């Protein structure tokens, strides 16, 4: 417990010290829409990865480079369903209370509910199978879901204004909140229900606003960005950082030496709804509880 507290404290100190520099860097490295090609041309450009680079600590260095494919591996065996990732993400990304559940949702699963099945009606009536308030429970396992930053994202294909796009440099599927007209076509096109819509203007207390992340206006779509403001600055996404059992891993899927690539080489992994041809960048492995650190 204290290890995590110290780590958190250190992160905040470093973050606070470098906030001005970081902010400027992020603004410059922020998704450039003015000179962007069409979103489709961009998607095609990333189809042929050229191999990523890595820094000494294995994390992605600052400013997106060509040929990087950011991805995440979640160890469902290790996940205890504490939802710390969910709430940390919410705080980090200025997700208001009116967006519920926030960008990350965590399911409580057992083998009567498959990855892509539906819980039976009787189970839902008896008390929701996939929502919960206490965890971990005996006989259950936990599966966090969020935007998978697909290689072949249906949401990007259907957007009528190009407000959502796949950045060719690091493979993140991002939003331009100024272009979005709120038609919600991307929301219905996403098979993972990963996207959220601002049905009302979200209220966030001024003192808790993270200045690195834009506060979204009413009527636009939002979702997990793999903490683009952090991961383009050599940091981990917030959810990965706060996980108390180290169930989350993040890195460059194109780099054969990255943490995520090594995990996927060593363990059977699956992606959700593979058959829908979305090519997610979010893998699930299960190494079991003995790997909880």
């Amino acid at each position, binding site marked *: 417990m204290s290890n995590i507290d110290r780590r958190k404290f250190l992160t905040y100190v470093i973050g606070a010290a470098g906030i001005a520099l970081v902010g400027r860097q992020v603004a410059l490295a922020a998704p450039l829409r003015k000179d962007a090609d*069409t*979103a*489709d041309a961009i998607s095609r450009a990333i189809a042929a990865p050229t191999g990523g680079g890595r820094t000494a600590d294995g994390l992605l260095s600052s400013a997106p480079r060509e040929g990087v494919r950011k991805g995440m591996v979640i160890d469902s065996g290790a996940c205890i369903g504490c939802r710390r990732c969910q709430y940390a993400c919410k705080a980090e990304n200025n997700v208001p209370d*009116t967006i519920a*559940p926030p960008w990350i*949702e965590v*399911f409580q*699963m057992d083998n009567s*509910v498959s*990855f*892509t*099945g*539906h*819980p039976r009606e009787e189970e*839902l009536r008896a008390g*929701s*199978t*996939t*929502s919960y308030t206490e965890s971990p429970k005996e006989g259950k396992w936990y599966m966090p*879901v969020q935007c998978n930053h697909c290689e072949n994202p*249906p949401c990007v*294909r*259907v*957007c*009528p*204004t*190009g*407000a959502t796009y796949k950045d060719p440099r690091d493979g993140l599927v991002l939003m331009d909140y100024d*272009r*979005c*007209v*709120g*038609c*919600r*076509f991307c*929301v*219905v*096109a*996403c*098979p*993972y*229900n*990963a*996207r*959220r*819509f*601002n*049905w*009302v*203007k979200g209220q966030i207390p001024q003192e808790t606003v993270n200045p690195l992340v834009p506060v979204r*206006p*009413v*009527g*636009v*779509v939002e979702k997990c960005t793999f903490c683009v403001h952090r991961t383009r600055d050599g940091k981990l996404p917030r959810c990965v950082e706060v996980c108390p059992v180290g169930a989350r891993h993040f890195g460059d899927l194109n780099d054969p030496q990255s943490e995520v690539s090594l995990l996927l080489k060593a363990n059977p992994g699956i992606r*959700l*709804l593979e058959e*829908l041809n979305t090519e997610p960048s979010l893998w699930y492995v299960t190494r079991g509880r003995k790997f909880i650190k």
Partner: protein
Amino acid sequence: MQMVKMDPREDIGGRLTLIARQQHKDELIRPLLNTSKQYLLVCGALALIAGWGIYAWILQLSQGLGVTAMGTPVGATWGVYIVNFIFFACMAHGGMAVSAAVHLLKAEKLKPIGRMGEVLTIVTLAMAGFSIIIDMGRPDRIFNMIRYWPERVGTSPLTWDITVIMVYFVLSASYLWLTMRRDLVRHADRFDLRGRLYKLLLIGYQPGEEKKIDRLAWWLSIAIIFLIVALSGGVIPWIFGLLPSQPGWFSSLAGPYFLTAAMASSIAAVMLVAGILRKGYRWQEVIKPDVFRTLGAVLGLITAFYMYLTFAEQLTMNFAAPRPEVVVSELVLSGELSPLYWVTMVAGFGIPSLVLILQTIRPAWFNVTRTVVLSGVIIAAFWAKRFLIVVPSLLRPLLPFPFGTYNPTWAEWSIIAGTFALAVLLYMLFIKVFPIVEGHEK
């Protein structure tokens, strides 16, 4: 001499007298000459409903779409507004289809209701566009759809949709305007204010232009049929049918399914409008029962065919289907939405189509009023059916999110009612400004 029953307007020589001719001409522009108290009352009531709808819309604009019952990620992301859009957009074909039949199939008997249907097309397309604007989270950014059109037309079904709807609207409006000119020129000197408007619309008028305009009508009829398939059987269903993310939507049947629904609901709409106007303005001799006989038969058959498509769809979603499809089908056939489904299928489609087919097979049973009423029932059923297409799939996510529910709020129903009231109001205003019946060539 035989006692032949003669039209009192005809003299012995069989030619209309001057007065009779004037009376005959006046018959067709009755709406332009008299305005009854009922008309004003109805307009007033409609204006109130439309006003209330607009009030609810303004509330929604200032507070956001949270005033609706829609929700993400659990619940309906699209709701009654999109249902309304499909309903109005797919209804916008009847008029043009009827006119196409007149020109291409030489179905002259349908000619009197040609313009009634064309005006219906314009009004319903406008309401379809309005419904989309109402559904948008940021309607103030609507111009983005145009601004980024070149960028997105290659991939987004919504962009295709906007394109085809605009093309269809432009062609229909031009068609209506140009074919109406011969009636405008006939009455331009008769009216004061309206006459000035007519003269404005007669810009570039050439006596004898009717021949060229008839050729335009012929060519455009072909283009319109093509666009009907491209719109109702193409870009609109492909907003749903191309998405595997929503079981129940993802189907190659989507195109033909929506097209059939469009043909049925739009023909029913033309009959409803023609029937009401016929009764209201005593046009029983102008719009003969044969019009309703023919269109009623077509409606009955298309509706029956639609029921076959529905059966095929549900069978496919149930027999050995993937679980997500079974779950969606269960919701509609035996779950929460089943009362709506079965009432719609039996009372909304089954009985009306059966009656329409029976009264076609047995001409003695045919009755105009019954046909018009059944048309109205079928129209209402199609609104409900489209609700049953859009919403159920959205309530059953693929991932193990809890099942969603959707009970539209007062704001949503008010806005829906407002769009209907506005549509009727616009139509009623049109018939007071322009001749709604195509003038005879006497």
